[in-house]
């Protein structure tokens, strides 16, 4: 027997579209990041957690925020489990035949997403946002230092920070250009080591950062 109707895949796609459509609404009714964390840590009553989960799973903006926190929380749990002695390790594979439960009632086509094998890990190095050009890793003391980076499409401004050995910001600059020169001889004194990085800000307020690059000051 076959009854024409929408497939499970079509229902899932429709759900994704509904989520995206809800993204444009205001965030006033959205649960706080702390409430999402409480849900993930099973804090509070089940009723509270169900309320939070119901909203989060039905809100495009919240669902991606929730996924960020969920992924971090679960990765944290993974590191804790890896640290346990082997004999105490609890199996993470609590097999719940969810698709079977659904198919027992609906015998639907289970979407690719549910069964998709885990793909290869995506590794990205630092500096995915802003590529730093100069100065090199080592410069002479007492000469003006030019910091330069590649332009970022859509960026309205850049913020440079130079950190000392203790991580304190010793010099910074905001500019709309892709370079800035530091000429204060009292900062970059011989024998010191610094780290520097750049953050780009777009017109919409979104930000992308560079990696952190080292800078050593040698004697002339």
């Amino acid at each position: 027997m076959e009854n024409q109707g929408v497939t499970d895949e079509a229902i899932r796609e429709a759900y994704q579209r509904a989520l995206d459509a809800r993204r444009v609404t205001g965030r006033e009714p959205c649960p706080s990041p702390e409430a999402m964390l409480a849900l993930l840590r099973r804090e509070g009553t089940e009723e509270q957690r169900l309320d939070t989960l119901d909203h989060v799973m039905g809100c495009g903006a919240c669902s991606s925020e929730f996924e960020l926190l969920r992924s971090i929380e679960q990765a944290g749990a993974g590191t804790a489990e890896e640290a346990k002695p082997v004999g105490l390790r609890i199996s993470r594979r609590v097999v719940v035949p969810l698709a079977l439960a659904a198919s027992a009632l609906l015998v639907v086509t289970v979407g690719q997403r549910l069964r998709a094998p885990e793909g290869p890990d995506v590794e990205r190095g630092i500096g995915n946002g802003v590529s730093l050009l100069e100065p090199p890793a080592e410069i002479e003391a007492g000469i003006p230092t030019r910091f330069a980076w590649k332009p970022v499409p859509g960026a309205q401004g850049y913020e440079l920070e130079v950190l000392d050995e203790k991580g304190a910001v010793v010099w910074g600059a905001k500019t709309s250009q892709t370079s800035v020169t530091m000429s204060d001889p009292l900062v970059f004194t011989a024998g010191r080591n610094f780290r520097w990085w750049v953050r780009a800000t777009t017109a919409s307020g979104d930000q992308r950062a560079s990696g952190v690059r080292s800078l050593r000051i040698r004697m002339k």
Partner: protein
Amino acid sequence: MPLALDKLSSELEAAVGRFAALVRRVGLRHRLSEADLEDVLQEVRIRLWRARSVPQSERTEQVSASYVYRLAVSAAVDLLRRRRARGADRTVALDEINEPVAEHPDPARAAEASELSAQLARAIEKITPSRRPVVRMYLAGYSGDEVARTMGWSEAKTRNLLYRGLADLRERLEEMGIGWKIRA
């Protein structure tokens, strides 16, 4: 000293990289934004560097996976708060900017799809509240293990709630004249 700094930098990057791989393994199948994750990781790197640059006698933390995890949670919560404060709902990767918006090749089908989404949203709202979040997770592509883990439920309870929730949804959709494709 420079060599020590390089070694420290490598250690920090390795610790962050290992943690990032775990996060991506969990989230990339769902709605995890790579741009958001990169923002969090960058903040973690900065915080780690600042923390590790203080004299050893003043340090209270080692660069352990659990320390990176705690920094990542804190950085993520800060990121979400900042974003909400400025009214944005997510980070947009720069390579996503100015991306041309593809028009649907078939406007009639696009309208149908849009209508189905609206009807589905209305049908879901009518599901028994205790079952609704489970159905939402299922439709969003989460596995039973992920549902059970999130709520701290047993396999049996998760399966039962999903079974009943999907039955609710099917009934609501049928009331709207939408059949769910059945094969037997």
